[in-house]
């Protein structure tokens, strides 16, 4: 398992709708802000890259020191961004694909307003379980 990993889902309108600090590193508040900052900076790269391929998994798009940003773009241009330090690409791909399936189920719920925060605790539990399994 990666010692540091931060997972964020960014909506089509560039608003973060889900955030989770996963990984075994001790939680520090200032580090979390630091992670947000790196992910935020990677968004521009993603915007350009997204139109050059029709794959959803864009692999690693950006790096900061020893941290790597991997991104997955869904059909509706919702971006899953993972900041991590290990390099098991297959695991990350599987992680994204399973989260994508969960996200579709949330999205199909007529009571979920597209672009709003994903507040479901079930979703949170499942994402964390997937992170433990794959990352």
């Amino acid at each position, binding site marked *: 398992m990666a010692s540091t990993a931060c997972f964020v889902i960014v909506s089509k309108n560039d608003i973060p709708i889900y955030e989770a600090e996963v990984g075994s590193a001790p939680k520090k508040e200032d580090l979390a802000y630091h992670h947000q900052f790196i992910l935020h900076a990677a968004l521009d790269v993603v915007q350009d890259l997204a139109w050059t391929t*029709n794959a959803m998994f864009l692999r690693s798009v950006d790096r900061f020191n020893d941290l790597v940003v991997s991104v997955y773009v869904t*059909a509706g241009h919702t971006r899953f961004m993972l900041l991590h330090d290990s390099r098991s690409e297959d695991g990350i791909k599987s992680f994204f694909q399973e989260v994508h399936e969960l996200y*579709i189920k949330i999205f199909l719920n007529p009571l979920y307003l597209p672009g709003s925060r994903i507040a479901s605790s079930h979703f949170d539990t499942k994402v964390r379980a997937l992170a433990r399994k794959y990352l």
Partner: protein
Amino acid sequence: MIGVGKAKQYANVLDKPLGRGRQEVSLSAFAFLFSEVVQYNQTQVDNIAELERRLEDAGYAVGARVLELLCHREKGNRRETRLLGILSFIHSTVWKVLFGKVADSLEKGTEHEDEYMISEKELLVNRFISVPKDMGAFNCGAFVAGIVRGVLDNAGFPAVVTAHFVPIEGQQRPRTTILIKFAEEVIHREARLG
């Protein structure tokens, strides 16, 4: 009711596997529901344009979801980045899932470069609807236009989409044409991608 009692119960939607989407829905049930949608919205508005807009908004929410679901289910997690790709995705994949058949035709507008048309001789939502004279050019296909706009907009191709009746010679019923006018940025990007 059909299907009740057969379905396995799940504690949460997240535990339920995504269906393969092979089931069909009764047309009469859908027609009744759609009729109610139109009637309800009619009580909420005071002009035709507003009614069309409300139907379009209802369709938009469907389109956004349909795009996300179908790219996962039918296209094996591939996105559409090209204009013609997304149009043929709507014309065949989306139409087939929603209406059980591909759309009758997909054409490029002759006058403008940024206009495309999807035509349907007998649009499913219009099958049991005839529009009274005093409602002018109102077309319940606005709902379908909304679906198309929802798919396009979420895939990153913002467009203005409208539904129109077009009379066909020798036929009682006019066909419905969904007119798609893409935003300028889409045409620019298309040119850049080459």
